[in-house]
């Protein structure tokens, strides 16, 4: 099966039909929710927090944040996905936006950020005049600035290969983050990769392997 990000940019791939299919698949719902819960536990937030959900889609990950009494703001490039989030009456504030264009919030806004299955799309730059490297740089610089000092981000993604994995991690480090990669179920076909990022500190102790 080909990877969706190899076929079309996300705003075209996740049209109404694909978005509906994606959101109503109980298998995808279960996986997305459990990965969001995992990301949230890695953040270990002490208070009800303000969280950015990068590539929030139809709000599956956001619902895990709401369930833990957090307030979230979501950005997604697919209008169809956001329309489903509206139908589902998710509690987060939704933005139609391209994270490859930056993160339009003032410095130190968020306690934390999460992202579930989204940032590998940044490496797809077919539809734009900007390179994948440029889009990754804009995103991570914007994310870094928008998090408060000591803030954290946990970004689960599906790297296509080693090159993409180090391209994404490298861009995060160049933006100033302390970075570690955590793998759940390593070496299986269900492997899940989490990029764990910290602002104003080195790599996380324990769990995450230094990059």
């Amino acid at each position: 099966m080909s990877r969706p990000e190899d076929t079309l940019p996300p705003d075209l791939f996740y049209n109404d039909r694909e978005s509906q299919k994606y959101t109503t698949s109980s298998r995808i719902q279960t996986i997305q929710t459990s990965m969001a819960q995992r990301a949230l536990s890695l953040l270990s937030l002490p208070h009800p927090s303000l969280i950015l959900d990068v590539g929030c889609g139809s709000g599956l990950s956001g619902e895990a944040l709401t369930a833990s009494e957090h307030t979230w703001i979501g950005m997604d490039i697919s209008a169809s996905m956001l329309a489903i989030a509206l139908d589902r009456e998710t509690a987060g504030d939704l933005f139609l936006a391209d994270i490859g264009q930056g993160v339009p919030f003032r410095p130190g806004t968020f306690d934390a950020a999460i992202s579930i299955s989204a940032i590998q799309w940044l490496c797809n730059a077919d539809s734009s005049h900007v390179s994948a490297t440029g889009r990754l740089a804009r995103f991570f610089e914007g994310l870094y600035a928008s998090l408060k000092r000591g803030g954290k981000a946990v970004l689960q993604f599906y790297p296509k290969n080693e090159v993409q994995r180090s391209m994404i991690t490298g861009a995060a480090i160049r933006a100033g983050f302390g970075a570690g990669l955590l793998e759940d179920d390593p070496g299986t076909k269900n492997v899940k990769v989490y990029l764990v990022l910290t602002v104003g500190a080195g790599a996380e102790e324990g769990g995450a392997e230094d990059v």
Partner: protein
Amino acid sequence: MKILTTNYLTCALRACKSHPSSFPLHFRDAELQQDSLPFNAAFIANILPRIDWPALLTTATELGFTGLPAEKPDLLATAEMEADEGVGRELHRILLETQVVEGKLVCGNCGHEYAIHQGIANFLLPGHLV
């Protein structure tokens, strides 16, 4: 879009970020909706230090809310807020329960207009502005 969000939101044009006139973005033709949400005092206490108070007053005035004090209140203790009906509840009402469902946000520096439809703001920039 919640009023809370507008207090953190900037123009998406990078050149605007360093211009004081670009923040806060200004509402035009805003249609409001009042929701009812459980009061979360711990959340208000957490975000209050990060609220830009003059910007909040500007936004609140533009939308017709006049109940906020001129100065940012001191750090509120969670238990205190839960007990009384004061500024914590007013902040909850304005920041979290008030939504702009239709209208636009306009940058005071570059004039770019961001449309809001069904509560969702469109921050996609056309290629030539990126």
